[in-house]
């Protein structure tokens, strides 16, 4: 292992008057270093970490002091490193200001060498105009650095940052300016790409959070679990949607799927999710809600096939809270305490399944046309009762259409899996189905997959 001093000398020694072989060796070392630098800076597409990696590398192989400034939007990232210490990155608002020399160098875009006086107030003033932070100014002062080199970072015709480098006492940069210019170019191109990625990821992240399925809330007496996997995982949004809304004693749970994948599908899914919420505010009957949402979608999409969607809605109310005009005195036996009444309607969606506590699996026979297909259609409702330890499962066709070695996962496998899950908790049901689907898929690509399980908890004894 060579010492830091030797490594720095290998790249920065003034070899202009050296013998040809030494000059060639230095040229090779410099080229190798620049390649490593480019790879390191461009592999790390996170700005803070890219700056840390850059400063680490510069301290290891080139200089004893490095500070890099990068401006993005309303912020400035500053990473400061001094030999023998861990570099530190901080993010500041541009409005909070920078040292004069830094502003000036970024404005002019011209590289410069700044010679420091040996000691005294002038030396400190010069350092403070080029370096941000008391600590690094102190450290450089103590190091006895004679000279700082200031390298603007320019890409696509715009100077967006600055690299300030210094060496220990007695070492300068003569004979290295072409190399340092190359170095700054490579750093600028790499960091510029990283900043572009970070800015678009930020925008995408804000959109993603607004499109992602709402956080599923918990409701007393019930246990709710969900599963959501999108086809295009790097986009992290998809056309499946799940939702739970309304008062605890009159809940509406939703699972749906719009045609298409990715961001466009997610935008449409969000609109339908909101439309269902709005409709349910007016009338909580699932058939009525679907009918209204359908009429709105038909009028908006004008038969455009891209607007098609399926959805299943279930309204859940404690059985005890409802009047039973036809219930006899033995009604209590059929509906133990804690039972939940469910009204379901479906618009072309895979049937909701009820997993009884003994493992019996029932289909809710709600039928209806896809949403946005034709205006004049009715969504009839069906009803059922969930007893304690029963589970209602809503899912999208990503589950049943998961492609295996030679067939789709299918309803039969789903029913078989569920028949072993009677009485289990909602998370256990969702996880067991997710595992079975994942094993069936292997490494094959899949469609968006969503599941929502609602398990009725036994009354506390």
């Amino acid at each position, binding site marked *: 292992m060579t010492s830091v001093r030797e490594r720095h000398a290998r790249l920065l020694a003034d070899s202009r008057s050296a013998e040809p072989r030494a000059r060639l060796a230095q040229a090779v070392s410099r080229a190798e270093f620049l390649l490593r630098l480019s790879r*390191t800076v461009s592999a790390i*597409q*996170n*700005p*803070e970490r890219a700056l840390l*990696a850059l400063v680490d590398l510069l301290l290891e192989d080139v200089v004893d002091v490095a500070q890099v400034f990068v401006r993005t939007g309303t912020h400035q990232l500053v990473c400061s490193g001094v030999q023998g210490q861990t570099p530190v990155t901080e993010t500041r608002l541009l409005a909070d200001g920078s040292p004069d020399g830094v502003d000036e160098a970024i404005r002019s875009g011209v590289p410069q060498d700044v010679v420091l006086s040996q000691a005294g107030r002038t030396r400190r003033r010069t350092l403070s105009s080029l370096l941000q932070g008391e600590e690094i100014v102190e450290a450089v002062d103590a190091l006895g650095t004679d000279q700082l080199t200031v390298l603007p970072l320019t890409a696509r015709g715009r100077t967006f940052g600055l690299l300030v480098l210094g060496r220990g006492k007695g070492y300068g940069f003569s004979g290295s300016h072409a190399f340092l210019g190359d170095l700054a170019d490579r750093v600028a191109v790499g960091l510029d790409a990283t900043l572009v990625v970070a800015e678009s990821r930020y925008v995408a992240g804000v959109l993603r959070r607004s499109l992602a399925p709402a956080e599923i809330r918990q409701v007393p007496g019930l246990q709710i679990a969900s599963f959501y996997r999108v086809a295009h995982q*790097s986009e992290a949004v998809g056309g499946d949607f799940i939702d739970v809304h309304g008062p605890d004693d009159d809940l509406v749970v939703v699972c749906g799927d719009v045609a298409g994948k990715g961001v466009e599908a997610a935008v449409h899914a969000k609109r339908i999710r909101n439309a269902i919420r709005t409709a349910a505010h007016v009338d909580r009957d699932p058939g009525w809600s679907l009918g209204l949402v359908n009429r709105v979608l038909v009028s908006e999409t004008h038969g455009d096939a891209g607007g098609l969607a399926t959805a299943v809605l279930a309204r859940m109310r404690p059985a005890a809270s409802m009047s039973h005009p036809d219930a006899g005195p033995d009604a209590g036996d059929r509906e133990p305490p804690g039972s939940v009444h469910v009204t379901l309607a479906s618009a072309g969606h895979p049937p909701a399944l009820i997993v009884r506590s003994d493992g019996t699996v029932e289909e809710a026979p709600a039928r209806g046309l896809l949403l946005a297909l034709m205006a004049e259609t009715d969504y009839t409702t069906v009803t059922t009762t969930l007893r304690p330890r029963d589970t209602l499962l809503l899912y999208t066709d990503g589950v049943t259409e998961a492609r295996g070695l030679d067939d789709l996962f299918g309803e039969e496998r789903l029913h078989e899996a569920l028949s072993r899950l009677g009485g*289990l908790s909602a998370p256990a049901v969702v996880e067991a189905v997710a595992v079975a689907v*994942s*094993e069936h898929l292997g490494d094959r690509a899949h469609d968006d997959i969503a599941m929502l399980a609602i398990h009725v908890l036994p009354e506390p004894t």
Partner: protein
Amino acid sequence: MTGSGPDPLVAAVGPDDLESYWRAVTAADPDAAYAVARRLRTAGAPLDSVLSGLVVASQARVGGLWARNQWTVAHEHAATAVNEEVVRRLGADQPEPTDGPPLLVACVEREWHALPALVVTHTLRSWGMRATFLGVNSSRDQLVSRILDTGPRAVLLSASLASSLSRVRRQVEAIRGTGTPVVVGGAAFDAAGVRASALGATAYAAGPAEAAELLVTIPRHVSQAPPLRHAEADEARVLVASGEEIVRAAIAATTTALGRGDDPSPASPDTWWSVLTGFAPHVVDCVAGALLTGDPSVVDETRTWYAEVLAGRDADPRALPALWSAFAHEVRDIPRAAALLARG
């Protein structure tokens, strides 16, 4: 009572605490389990000792009871869910850590055991480290997205099953591709870290304390994982690519060898036949893991485990040898894989 600080007599997790906790786990009662843990925390026991003394200890019992066929899969699931919920609730009681660089904790693709990674996450958080759990079955895309957005100091990758080793490798490649160090841990690895280093991980940590120590010393940035070019790695890739066909053929051959007809009724997950066939895909993945890591004990350990679990279910004693020779036959054109299966 005078003095300050935790009372050493109440602050430690005692055998009685573990027994009360265990009763709650057995009864699938998360509230009662949490109450035991909460009481210890209030008495001053640190989160890491509560997690290791109650949660990890009881989960080991759960696994043992399932392995010996004293508990059904359903019972095991319910108990595991209690342990997970207790960790989450104890974790939520903690203040949000604010210092230090972010850390990501993830379970390798196709692994659904959250508990070990959850324990690591909340233990590190209780020490003030900004660890975030990404959930079970983390895909490479999800991991890379989170790395780009958060710029973590390192990713801690958990793998509980030896059959996950080939997927650990793919994930190590993805993580190192972003320059981020990756510390692996979990039951899939050996204590000496041989498997971890063969797969290109930056380091192996036996537990949260070791991980915390490593985070001080490992490099802040790592290079791409150099490709595995040895012949064993090529075989592992072939094996994984044709894994499903191999498993199907091996199960069919075993069915014939044991004279079992087609059994159309849905099997209970607790019969020995369900266990034999359900875990068969792991055999192929373990062979791939042994090839990638150069560690044949991956296959031997799997066979030993299989034999114990099957014995606990009164399996046909011919079943495991039959499955093994069926696998050896199916991979006969992949010589190093065949040799690993022939060892048993």
